[in-house]
């Protein structure tokens, strides 16, 4: 058994797009204990054509630190064999990637739970804020936080 210190935890906050396949390969190559990999990709929707772009603001330094805390908690709780979380900032148009989470584990439920846990905490705890730019040029606005996201996180605290 690998000890926790040997489990890869990859955290990045970047303007550039990411390559899910390359990140998955880098995280999981050569570990023959991995039987399940779950990847989550979050994308910018067009909201029925009303959205021109999202602008993602973040708190440099804290964003990375908070995502790392969440990822390390996930490794511990679900005995993951690897975790990666990459979050973009800046301007994103519909169809563009926003966030990538990869969880690897011996069995599928741990991998699903690990990726889902990281997303639920990331949504409510990682210091990122979305501003919407509307397609019709009307005033843009900050996205409101959702109660449903708080409830999704609280589910893990029961």
């Amino acid at each position, binding site marked *: 058994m690998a000890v926790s210190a040997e489990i890869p935890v990859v955290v990045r906050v970047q303007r550039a797009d990411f390559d899910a396949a390359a990140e998955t390969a880098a995280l999981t190559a050569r570990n023959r204990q991995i039987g399940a990999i779950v990847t989550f990709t*979050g994308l910018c929707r067009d909201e029925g054509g009303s959205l021109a772009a999202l602008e*993602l*603001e*973040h*708190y440099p*330094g*804290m*964003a990375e*630190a*908070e995502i790392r805390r969440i990822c390390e908690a996930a490794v511990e709780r679900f005995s993951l064999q690897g975790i990666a979380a990459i*979050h973009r900032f800046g301007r994103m148009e519909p169809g563009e990637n*926003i*966030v990538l989470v990869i969880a690897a584990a011996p069995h599928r439920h741990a991998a699903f739970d690990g990726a889902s846990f990281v*997303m639920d905490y*990331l*949504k*409510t*705890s*990682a*210091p*990122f*804020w*979305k*501003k919407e730019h509307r397609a019709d040029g009307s005033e843009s606005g*900050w*996205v*409101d*936080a959702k109660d449903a996201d708080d409830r999704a996180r609280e589910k893990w605290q029961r």
Partner: protein
Amino acid sequence: MTRLVYFAWVRERIGREEEELELPGHVKTAADLLKHLKTLGEEYEVALEHENVIRVAIDQEHVEHGESIEGAREIALFPPMTGG
């Protein structure tokens, strides 16, 4: 001097990204800080009007409003997060 940083609509309403402030001795907690800032001008009053929704981080870790700010190097104020 304590470094304050602001994000999203808190930043927009206060009108700056960061500043260094000398805080009076009676400002001991994050809640005290919010109350103090609201005495510094209308832009702070507007930005921090609904105190309960303002999130606070001390040296890049989330804290409750009751938390002491003693020794803080950097205090961040921002709205609820909407990443992911």
